[in-house]
């Protein structure tokens, strides 16, 4: 058991470091290059975010592991078989967009004047970035790293799919649950929770204290590194890594799905024959839960976001609240689900459906609150001050000033919650006994605990992806319509 938990952390750290190393150059490319293709790249980098992780797991399994994937090119039955390495490849892929998103945001907010100042003082581009930009952005890089780590530790559904016989923390808990060994489940979950908190706490406390080493520069080497051919090579490598290790594996699912449609499985699917009956009811369940979780989050999260953003509690309280809000992200969702399960079960009989809804709400809470708090903080306090002194009561200030200026973030936050909920496997599998959400159902299809044909499997996953896309596109359209009336 300890071994499994340890493996979770090892994999998490390795993946996060790799993601940071590969994600930063790509984010740099997106922000600093000119031309329309960078917006396309920006959207492509988001794809692993949008695809539900179960689908991602399956796609990666097919790409790296199955005879129909990469192995085809090399004439073998499997290129990378299930196990540790596949888990690493999976986690790398789905944490990648997290890093890119955060870093793009950091680069956009960064005052380029610092870098320009360094260059006027004689530093080559590479030196300026290394000695000035990166140290200044250190907090952002750390935040991205921690986020990637959290995601990796948390991930359940897809990891189960690709793990095969290997066990990391979440796989272990899941397997043990299946065998009904409650004590082991509880202990393992507790260990994971405590270790997560410790690791994150330590990293957060130690890193800001690391002193910046006195400046050491190798002018000639760094000049060469600043030259165009070097930069071009670096960009090319970033793009290739992105393509081969992230984009292609994610999109690979399209192939077997399309094949399945061509083979006529689609008609069966729509008719609701056989396993498809359970499938559609799972899909329905997933989306209903997602909508409910989103609504509860908005209603309960908005006041907290405002309180955090405007520091109403005083600094010490604010730091505590801050840390608490982050909890659901840090703690692996499966472990969280186990503890939630005990909590709600001990409270008496609450229908399973509502326990799942509550679990999803808790898991996704942080996403919404963080997004809203950041955006509210982004509104200059002077605007609210001016509004107040013009005679506006607090509710009016909120309705007429704060809300219109944060509408876009509200939508974004809601979208984040929605997608995360549809995605959710960890906590759900801990809490759900009879009900199956779509990702959970698909995991059982992929692992073979429910007997389905490969075509049905591919199509099922394909449907999940397609509906996710559709829901997202619709939400995005609503968002753009609203933000079109919003003034920058």
């Amino acid at each position: 058991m300890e071994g499994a938990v340890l493996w979770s952390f090892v994999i998490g750290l390795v993946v996060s470091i790799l993601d940071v190393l590969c994600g930063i150059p790509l984010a740099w490319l997106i922000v600093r290059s000119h031309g329309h293709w960078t917006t396309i790249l920006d959207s492509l980098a988001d794809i692993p975010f949008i695809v539900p992780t179960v689908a991602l797991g399956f796609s990666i399994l097919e790409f790296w592991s199955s005879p129909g994937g990469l192995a085809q090119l090399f004439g073998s039955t499997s290129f990378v078989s299930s196990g540790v390495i596949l888990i690493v490849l999976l986690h790398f892929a789905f944490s990648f967009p997290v890093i890119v998103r955060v870093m793009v945001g950091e680069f956009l907010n960064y005052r380029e004047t610092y870098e320009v100042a360094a260059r006027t003082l004689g530093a080559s581009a590479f030196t300026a970035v290394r000695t000035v930009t990166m140290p200044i952005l250190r907090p952002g890089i750390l935040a991205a790293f921690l986020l990637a780590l959290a995601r990796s530790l948390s991930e359940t559904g897809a990891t189960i799919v690709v793990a095969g016989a290997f066990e990391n923390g979440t796989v272990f808990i899941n397997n043990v649950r299946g065998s009904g060994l409650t004590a082991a489940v509880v202990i393992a979950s507790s260990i994971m929770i405590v270790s997560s908190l410790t690791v994150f706490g330590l990293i957060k406390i130690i890193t800001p204290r690391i002193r910046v080493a006195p400046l050491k520069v190798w002018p000639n080497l760094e000049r060469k590194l600043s030259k165009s051919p070097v930069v071009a090579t670096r960009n090319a490598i970033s793009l290739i890594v992105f393509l081969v290790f992230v984009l292609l594996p994610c999109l690979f699912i399209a192939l077997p799905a399309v094949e399945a449609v061509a083979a006529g499985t689609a008609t069966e699917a729509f008719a609701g024959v056989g396993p498809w009956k359970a499938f559609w009811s799972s899909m329905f369940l997933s989306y209903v839960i997602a909508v409910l979780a989103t609504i509860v989050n908005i209603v309960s999260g908005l006041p907290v976001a405002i309180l955090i953003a405007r520091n109403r509690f005083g600094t010490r309280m604010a730091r505590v609240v801050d840390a608490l809000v982050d909890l659901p992200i840090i703690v692996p969702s499966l472990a969280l689900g186990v503890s939630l399960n005990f909590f709600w079960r001990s409270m008496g009989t609450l229908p399973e459906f509502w326990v799942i809804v509550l679990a999803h709400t808790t898991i996704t809470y942080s996403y919404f609150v963080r997004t809203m708090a950041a955006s509210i903080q982004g509104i200059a306090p002077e605007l609210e001050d001016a509004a107040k002194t013009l005679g506006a009561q607090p509710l009016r200030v909120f309705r007429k000033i704060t809300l219109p200026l944060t509408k876009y973030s509200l939508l974004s936050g809601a979208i984040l919650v929605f997608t995360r909920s549809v995605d959710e496997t960890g906590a759900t599998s801990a809490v759900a006994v009879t009900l199956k959400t779509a990702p959970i159902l698909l995991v059982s299809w992929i692992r073979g605990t429910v007997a389905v044909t490969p075509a049905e499997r591919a199509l099922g996953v394909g449907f999940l992806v397609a509906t996710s896309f559709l829901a997202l596109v619709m939400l995005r359209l609503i968002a753009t319509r609203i933000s079109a009336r919003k003034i920058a």
Partner: protein
Amino acid sequence: MSKIYGNIHALADVSLHVEDKEYVCILGPSGCGKSTLIRCIAGINKPDSGQILIEGKSVEQTPIEDRRIGYVFQDVALFPHMSVRDNLSYGLAVRHAESTEITTVTNEMLDLMNIRDRSKAYPRELSGGAQQKVAVGRAIATGSHLFLLDEPLGALDALVRADLRYELRKLASDLGLTVIHVTHDQEEALSIADRVVVMKSGRIVEVGKPSDIYIAPQNLFTENFVGETNLLEGKVLETNGSQCVVDIKGHRIRVSGFGKKVGQRVIVSIRPEFVPLTTPSEVGWKGVIKQVTFLGNLNRYVVEVDGGIELITEESTAEYSTGFRVGESVSVLLANDAHMLLFDYPKEGLEKEISLE
């Protein structure tokens, strides 16, 4: 030391020549292109067409870090994660200078800018003026001789600005630097520049010594921008080639003006310090005091003269006269043409010509 021919949408056909050790101020309203100009010289922006020559050599292909120019930014841009000392020594460190040289030069800078006791402090702990001094010291430490200052005093209090500008000027003289200093503050430019370059909407409007562009500018925009002035619209009644008699709403004045035609629309410009007021007399224009403002060393009056003309006039409080009061009748003695300038009426209208934004 540098010559520029430029053609950018923020700059249109700009040509400028700056001599070695000259202190040039580029003066103009926000958005006139002055910052774009020095950013091109530094290499931060690239001109769409034209050349930039530093010490006779073309530098378009040279990257920023190789142009050996000291640059001071409006928002200071001190590296927040480095102490004052590390900021000052950055330029030397990146050239891989010897550590003994770094220490010596850094200490020199600390002494020069009078901030030895703050060497371990971080930028956020310093006042605005102190931060700007560190920024200047950091640029000087690199040993460059060409300096570009982008509104270096813009973020500072009025009183600090007034003091610091003279310190900057003295520093430049003592170290033999060539400086191009960008500002929107006409008093700043007039008080320290060897030459002033006036810009508007991406073009150079006029270049000259401070006293020349204040006392006898060629251009109406310059006349209005480098100091307050009264602009009176009128028509030429008579001219003998070098002098004109101009009619302004029924009043006549004689102004020197070359090449004007009878009937031509003109603008007469008189600065407030040259509008003499007396108790009512036979000579001069009759008027009434509309507003009085005490400015300490000056009394400022707004006088309404027959014909609805408003004149601003300023007189020193050094003379112990009691000054005039609101409502009092006065005479404005403008008959003689000393200190008056004549300009052609601008094609696009007066308001557009002198507009500041």
